[in-house]
């Protein structure tokens, strides 16, 4: 079961130079919220930004990661 530290590490590794903060929304280890700030988001729509983060986890979203709520910005 993935934890907040693992999710943070995987997002930051997949999106070079990004900063991610991950919360476990329920304490149950399957509903997370991630706030991700990444240079590469500049010029991308919100849909594209969220797709980029979802892609890090592939089919784990909806599986072991039941929900991943996202807030993304380029900054």
């Amino acid at each position: 079961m993935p934890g907040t530290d693992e999710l943070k590490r995987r997002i930051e590794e997949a999106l070079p130079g990004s900063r991610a903060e991950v919360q476990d929304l329920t304490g149950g280890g399957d509903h997370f919220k991630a706030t991700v700030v990444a240079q590469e988001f500049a010029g991308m729509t919100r849909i594209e930004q969220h797709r980029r983060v979802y892609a890090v986890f592939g089919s784990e979203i909806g599986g072991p990661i039941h929900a991943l709520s996202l807030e993304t910005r380029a900054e």
Partner: protein
Amino acid sequence: MSENPIREAISEAITDHEVILFMKGTPERPMCGFSARTVAALDALGSPYAAVDVLPDPRIRQELSSISNWPTIPQLFVRGELVGGCDIVSEMYESGELAQTLGVEPPDEAPDEAPVAAEPGAPPLMPENRLG
């Protein structure tokens, strides 16, 4: 006969309805907090929308995600385009962009936060049937 009737039915529904929400449960009885929150934002703007419950058959969700390249439910489409899931719809509600996208007036006294969603199984916030 179609090779994939579910996929075709989903594509048709997206094309045929100007505003369509794929969700868990129904607007009257959302079965997931994220779906409930999205319904609450749409209902607060009073704009009509069609809704499809993805729960009765897991293939609906599978085919929808394959069409939209979006892994989670809910998914809101406006004029054939994916607008987003709960996070994006809530953000857009708060910024007024959602009203703009839907072509409706924002509420006179827009709350600072998106409307609070009913918990799954809780009584509906607005029991009006908007199923299209």
